[in-house]
């Protein structure tokens, strides 16, 4: 995108909340002059923001980053018009007459298939969708239970992606099992597992899946989610249940436990945070490209030179974009496993490999300033501070002169307040009940702004007031008891320290502020010895190529554009489509910045049908349709601009048009109809339906029907049944 393009755009529709789909938005708005309205679903706004915050923070951690700022991110996302699924939205202004509607695409929360409609022209933009159900999302509405959503069938143009055109998926269950298998093997042998992922979209699936696995198997290995925004990602996930799968909402309604109130998964924001958790662990970290973020840091730390003796595992769940480190590793894994296990059966999940190579990469570091640099920096800071102070003093003085009169009355009170504030400024230990404690909705006990004293309800047993043994103990024994109790509290199993975590998170700013200490960035190019177990398990949550090829003909677009794939899969998908019967031959595979003209411009005008016309129509029913031949004359009524269509009253005989048969029956269904009527019908040979051994019904290559038989009553009966399956006009 450049300046010229950005300024010409009238509306932007965003379909997913990951970098691939919205990464350039803040930059385009702040630097390229993109001013038009932007549309997306509610979760894409929330999660997209998380995605960009995370990226910004990751970049800031490794270099001076000014491509965009956090303010740019806020500005870009706060301006988005958010929509709900299947909410038709009429675009304003220049785009008047165009209606956009979002449909669930699955893959990511709030993921969208866009329908853009003007009159009879319908464009369906469906990239990165998933027709299969996942643990936190249902499959796309585009194709559910084997049926294509009515509203999305037969668009005049469909734009889809070829990312997965040559991929065939093993069942999801097997893939999950493979992931857990690798994970457990590594953990048991004392290694840790790194799962690079994004910070906003697929991370939810991984987090939910792993947390569930952990609680089902009651695992004690630490499970950590490490992104710059992990708390808020989970926080927003909690309030967007209505955008998630039915199973999840049903479960929530049943148990009232929010599925994103993780039981085992710990949320961390800093690399140092994970040092608390010792021993083998599993870390989900951003970014999935391994080009930036904690994932790269951990990769270097665990698999690079400083690695401990044990074998750690890098588990890729997405292929990432070409050119990235993750893709490079994937390619190597793919190459090695393909040669080792080339039996052509693509549906098995390929195993992990021992990766032991040296990779040339850039290592980013942020270190505190020292010595001269530090002195220089401090000098600059001080000068700046002095300047600021001088400036502030001037402003304050002029202000105080102006307001002096007004203030004089209130000054007494101000003073009083000041002293009060001074008093409050000193710290006292007050017993304040923890308000942010999650779980409880009501206050659990009365709170006191006084010395904490909890009035205990007097327990009464059969002998009167129950004896509290502690009251009668020696003080030394009491101390010992106290200590024991504290120990107990310390070891509550896997759930320790959880609530405290949450409280700290809640009051923490969205992103950790920059360290106070002056820092500088150091970038070195170096060869790093990498040693790890490497495995790729496809958890991208996208429909595979085989499914694409069955879904596309069911949608039946009148034109098709294939994008988002390298040339080979793109061509493969395009070719597969060209070979389909009844499928459009207008398939385009544009390259970047190529301009296509795909305007369909269907002619259209409205007519009002007169009552006489309506009553003269003879409708025949076909599925949900009603069809009738209409023949009349156009008249322009004086009181309206819309032409009306009236019955032909002139004597002229209209030329009789030949009959039209509408309908596309399946022979297998017709067979059932015949059998229902007591006629034996069997398939013989190549799709020939033989009925009562004397009449054959078949479909020719062009989709036409052929009835063949000897003269007999059956012939006529079968023919009339066949006719009845169609609307004849």
């Amino acid at each position, binding site marked *: 995108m450049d300046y010229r393009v950005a300024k010409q755009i009238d509306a932007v529709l965003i379909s997913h909340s990951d970098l691939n789909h919205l990464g350039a938005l803040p930059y385009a708005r702040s630097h390229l002059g993109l001013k038009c309205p932007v549309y997306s679903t509610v979760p894409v706004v929330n999660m997209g923001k998380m995605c960009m915050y995370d990226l910004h923070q990751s970049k800031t951690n490794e270099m001076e980053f000014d491509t965009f700022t956090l303010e740019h991110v806020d500005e870009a996302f706060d301006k988005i018009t958010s929509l709900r699924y299947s909410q038709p939205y009429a675009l304003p202004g220049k785009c008047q007459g165009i209606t956009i509607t979002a449909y669930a695409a699955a893959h990511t929360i709030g993921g969208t298939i866009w329908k853009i409609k003007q009159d009879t022209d319908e464009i369906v933009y469906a990239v990165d969708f998933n027709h299969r159900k996942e643990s936190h999302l249902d499959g796309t509405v585009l194709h559910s239970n084997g049926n294509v959503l009515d509203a999305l069938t037969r668009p005049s143009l469909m734009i889809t992606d070829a990312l997965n055109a040559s991929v065939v998926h093993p069942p999801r269950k097997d893939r999950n099992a493979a992931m857990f298998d690798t994970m457990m093997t590594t953990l048991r042998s004392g290694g840790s597992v790194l799962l690079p992922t994004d910070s906003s979209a697929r991370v939810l699936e991984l987090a939910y899946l792993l947390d569930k696995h952990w609680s089902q198997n009651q695992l004690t290995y630490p499970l950590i989610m490490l992104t710059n925004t992990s708390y808020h990602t989970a926080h927003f996930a909690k309030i967007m249940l209505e955008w998630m799968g039915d199973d999840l909402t*049903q479960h929530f309604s049943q148990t009232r436990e929010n599925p994103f109130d993780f039981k085992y998964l710990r949320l961390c924001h800093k690399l140092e945070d994970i040092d608390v958790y010792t021993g083998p662990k599993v870390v989900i970290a951003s970014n999935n490209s391994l080009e930036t973020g904690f994932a790269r840091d951990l990769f270097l730390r665990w698999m690079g030179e400083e690695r401990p003796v044990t074998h750690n595992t890098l588990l890729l769940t997405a292929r990432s974009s070409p050119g990235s480190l993750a893709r490079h590793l994937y390619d190597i894994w793919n190459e090695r496993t393909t040669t080792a296990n080339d039996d052509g059966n693509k549906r098995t999940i390929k195993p992990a490999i021992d990766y032991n190579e040296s990779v040339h990469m850039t290592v980013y570091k942020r270190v505190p300033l020292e010595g001269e640099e530090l002195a220089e920096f401090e000098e600059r800071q001080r000068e700046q501070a002095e300047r600021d102070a001088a400036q502030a003093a001037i402003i304050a003085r002029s202000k105080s002169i102006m307001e002096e009169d007004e203030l004089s009355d209130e000054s007494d009170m101000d003073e009083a307040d000041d002293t009060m504030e001074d008093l409050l400024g000193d710290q006292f230990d007050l017993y304040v*009940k923890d308000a942010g404690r999650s779980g409880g909705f*009501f206050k659990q006990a009365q709170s006191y702004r006084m010395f904490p004293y909890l009035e205990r309800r007097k327990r009464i047993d059969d002998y009167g007031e129950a004896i509290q043994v502690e009251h009668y103990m020696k003080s030394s024994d009491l101390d010992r008891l106290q200590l024991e109790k504290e120990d107990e509290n310390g070891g509550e199993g896997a759930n320790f320290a959880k609530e405290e975590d949450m409280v700290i998170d809640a009051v923490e700013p969205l992103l950790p502020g920059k360290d106070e200490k002056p820092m500088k960035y150091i970038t070195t190019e170096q060869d790093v010895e990498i040693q790890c177990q490497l495995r790729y398990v496809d958890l991208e949550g996208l429909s595979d190529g085989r499914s694409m090829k069955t879904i596309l003909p069911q949608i039946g677009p009148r034109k098709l554009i294939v994008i988002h794939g390298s040339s080979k899969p793109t061509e493969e998908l395009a070719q597969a489509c060209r070979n389909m019967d009844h499928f459009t031959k207008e398939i385009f595979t544009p390259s970047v910045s190529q301009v296509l003209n795909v305007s369909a411009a269907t002619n*259209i005008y409205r007519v009002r049908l007169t009552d006489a016309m309506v009553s003269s129509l003879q409708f025949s029913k076909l599925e949900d349709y009603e*069809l009738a*031949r209409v023949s009349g004359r156009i008249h322009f009524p004086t009181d309206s601009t819309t032409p009306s269509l009236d019955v032909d009253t002139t004597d002229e005989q209209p030329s009789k048009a030949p009959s*039209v048969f509408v309908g*596309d029956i399946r022979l297998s269904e017709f067979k059932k109809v015949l059998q229902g009527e007591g006629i034996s019908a069997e398939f013989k040979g190549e799709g020939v339906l033989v009925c009562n051994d004397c009449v054959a019904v078949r479909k020719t290559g062009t989709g036409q029907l*052929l009835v063949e038989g*000897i003269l007999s009553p059956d012939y006529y009966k079968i023919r009339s049944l066949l006719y009845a399956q169609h609307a004849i006009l």
Partner: protein
Amino acid sequence: MGHHKRKADYEIPIVDENDLLKLTPLGAGNEVGRSSILLEYKGKTILLDAGIHPAYNGLASLPFFDEIDPASIDVLLVTHFHVDHAAAVPYLMERTSFKGRVFMTHPTKAIYKWLLSDYVRVSNIGDEDQLYSEEDLITSFHRIEAVDYHQQVEVEGIKFTSFNAGHVLGAAMFLIEIAGVKVLYTGDYSREEDRHLMAAEKPEGSVDVLITESTYGVQSHEPRLAKEVRFTSLIHDIVGRGGRCLMPVFALGRAQELLLILDEYWDAHPELDSIPIYYASSLAKKCMAVYQTYINMMNARIRKQFAISNPFIFKHISNLRNVEQFEDSGPCVMMASPGMLQNGLSRELFERWAPDKKNGLVITGYCVENTLARQAMNEPQDFTAMDGRKVPLRMSVDYISFSAHVDFTQNSKFIEEVKAPHVVLVHGEANAMFRLKSALQSRFSEREENVKVYTPKNCETVKLHFRGEKMAKTIGTLAAKYPIENEPLNGILVAKDFQLNIMTPEDLSELGGLITTVVTQRQVVPFNAGISLLKWHLEMMFGTLNESALEKADKSGEKGIVLRVFDTIDIKQLERRNNQLTLEWIGNAMNDMIADSVLAVILSVDSSPASVKASTHPCSHSHSGAEEDRDVPLEHDKIQQEIDMNFQDVVAFLTEQFGEVNFDEKEHKVTVNVDGSQAIVDSLKFSVESEDDVLLKRVNDVMQRIKLAVNPIPTF
């Protein structure tokens, strides 16, 4: 209540039953409670809400479902989770023949289950009187589909969209569109933004019928701030004088708003710290997770707060699990359900606290007639307790309405903004409703606006006539040119879900998504005579035929002969199978008829006496009878004969029409003389020549009719 006569007061004489939009309240007609309104139009049936009447028990509390066939309902839309709008849903879904689809918003569905299971438990009086069981509730719960605000759903031609209605979390208004007619059902709604909910939205675009609630009739609410101040100071007073303050509330909905107000007030008044606020509802506790989750359906204020911390975690309010746990000592504030003191904890506490004049009862919600809360509002000397004894009522009784229903100002403003020509009032007691009706009517007549207001009773049908203006879109090649006056338009009309499109048959697959097909038929007939004999017979019947060798017509490589009748039906005879014929044609009504007649000829060839004559040589011996001597006429002769006959017919007709005519038998021409003008008619071509235009036209008309009479089946 069930003895209303079924008469339609508002009937307008109309022609087409199909154009009638029928609205029948099965509940909530001239009453508050058991909301359930039946909407029928164009063969589609929608039920809006299915609630119970809180003042009745068992079957008597249901809407009049026995007046309808539940199986005919296509869609049930539930506006919010209150029992008077949703509690009959499990009954309808599980205990009747209902088989439609049910929709409600996500929070409504989430709370529905807990609220109704509580209702089932509380109303568990006797097994025979119970409307439905816990299992029914669970099964129904799984069949309910959840929708989001603004999401447009289409079910077989019924389009509907839900909008924010305020009132309670998840409350929705439904805008329903069938065949272009739009009906807006408000459910219970509020036009005032409060602490956690946004005000009801007004859907864009025109609305034809507005079904609105009328709970508060012509009453006006006091401004929110004043009301809140009155409320908090009233409570302050009661606890200040050492009394206990009882607030009967619906467990969910407005109670959450009151909690937010009280928590804020207690925060601001540290002197109240020692006075506990109890909220005695395990149901509310259960549903709090729902309030914490569906933040996106509340207002911007709450969403903002939520980003920092959870506003639904209260600092000063304690949950009371059961009465045993409750130490009744000293002043306190107690919120307890149910909201109208029908039974349960609120009733129990009311009976306990009523005799002490220090105590206070604060009623915050709307109270239905025949409930104790309603009676208490009239401050009687005493009342009857659950166990039958008389209890004196000395505690103070106050009524501050926090029920999020519209008042007159808001309701009438909303009605005016929606601008629907038909307004149907429901969910209001008869008096309130009629006052509102007359207030609205006088307002409309002042402005000379033609708006009709209806207040149907239960089971009374409002019939509205919508002249189904049929608009169709002409698309594709048919619409290539904008039409001019009197231009013919021929095509196929495709109707789906009340959308009409006209297109050419060729465009059907491209634009309509419909596949056209061709049915080719091939029939095999045994035939033993010679092909030339058949040809002769067919020519007798159908005129000239096309004959060609099979090799040319077909690529099969078979040798044989093909006869083509009327350019539609091929009769093939293969050389290697000369004892049978194959008929092949493209199936349609006309072709099938011709094929049948061809078949009749083929079948009669073998047995027809004419064949025998045609195929036998004349024999030398004589036969008796003159007829048999006559030779079979040759083809030319036959045609000649026919033409002559036709000519004579034409002459006869013309003579009838124009008097004496001259004719030339050889040239087959007739000359007509009328008033000195002359017209020459060619009876073979049926053409007319004349110098007089008037006569020419007249003779021409006559000739067209003669042509139809003489030659009724045109040659193909």
